[in-house]
């Protein structure tokens, strides 16, 4: 699998993503500059975390109109795989590649800590090898991660099984106390209806290296690579 990690001005998790895909999982990985109009025949486009354009106006709002995003939108429309983490998730929502929006955390603080999330379904490329309802410890680092969508979209997300991850406690229970930002129904990650665009606030790419003593994020990458082989 060839992976393209997009670099926007203000991206700061692009190196983490490259280290995960290239060094941990042996994928051919290239960085793609946001002003370019070439996805370099990548199989997966990864939108990393950070503060694109300084989070001016709204997180992801200005990055959504970077030149490369039109290529990403066209790529996704043809079924290409796109994965956004943190600021990448915000950009995907602003681009309307994913439904909903990410609002300021309900407590107005920047959250930087390990939390627990669980996969709600194995019916997606990034959750196919995970065990449903089993807690994974994954870092979060965001000020605007409160997932919100209207009721009609929430119903769609549920009926189409698009809610991939929810915040939970260490035992896999979705509780108010385990919701770090006030997200609607503890939602931490979703996919689009066609299941080729994925977005999540937690950072699995920061939890793949044994030297960091947390490898709970590896399962997402293993799922992706295993299911990609089968596609």
């Amino acid at each position, binding site marked *: 699998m060839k992976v393209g990690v997009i670099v926007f001005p203000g991206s700061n998790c692009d190196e983490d993503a490259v280290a995960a895909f290239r060094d941990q999982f042996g994928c051919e990985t290239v960085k793609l500059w946001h002003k370019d109009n070439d996805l370099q025949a990548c199989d997966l486009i990864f939108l990393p975390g950070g503060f694109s354009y300084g989070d001016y106006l*709204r997180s992801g709002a200005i990055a959504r109109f970077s030149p490369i995003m039109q290529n990403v939108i066209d790529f996704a429309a043809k079924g290409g795989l796109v994965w956004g983490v943190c600021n990448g998730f915000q950009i995907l929502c602003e681009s309307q590649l994913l439904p909903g*929006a990410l609002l*300021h*955390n*309900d407590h107005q603080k920047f959250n930087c800590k390990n939390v627990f999330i669980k996969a709600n379904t194995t019916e997606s490329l990034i959750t196919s090898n995970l065990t449903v309802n089993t807690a994974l410890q994954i870092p979060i680092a965001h000020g605007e991660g409160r997932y*919100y*969508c209207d009721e009609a979209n929430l119903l769609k997300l549920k009926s189409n099984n698009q809610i991939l991850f929810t915040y939970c406690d260490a035992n896999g229970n979705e509780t108010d106390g385990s919701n770090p930002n*006030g997200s609607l129904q503890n939602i931490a990650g979703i996919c689009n209806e066609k299941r080729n665009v994925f977005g999540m606030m937690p950072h699995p790419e920061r939890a793949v290296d044994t030297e960091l003593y947390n490898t709970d994020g590896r399962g997402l990458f293993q799922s992706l690579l295993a299911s990609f082989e089968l596609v």
Partner: protein
Amino acid sequence: MKFKAEIDVMPHAALLDPQGKAVSNSMPNIGLPSIHDVRIGKHISMELTADDDAAAHEMVETACKKLLANLIMESYSFTVKAV
């Protein structure tokens, strides 16, 4: 013709506005406990060139819909005046 637009972008009333809530809660600290329900949005001003008033309005409307406001979480209103 030159125009000046004044735009307000506000979070939807139904959504929790943590900034507004924090400011609301601080009102008693400055001796004004009767102030409540503070909501915080953005005020954006801009200058533009357009053929006429209608074209200026349309341009600002497009800017609001495409970039300045996210209609999932915000609403907008604006005025446009020739300068």
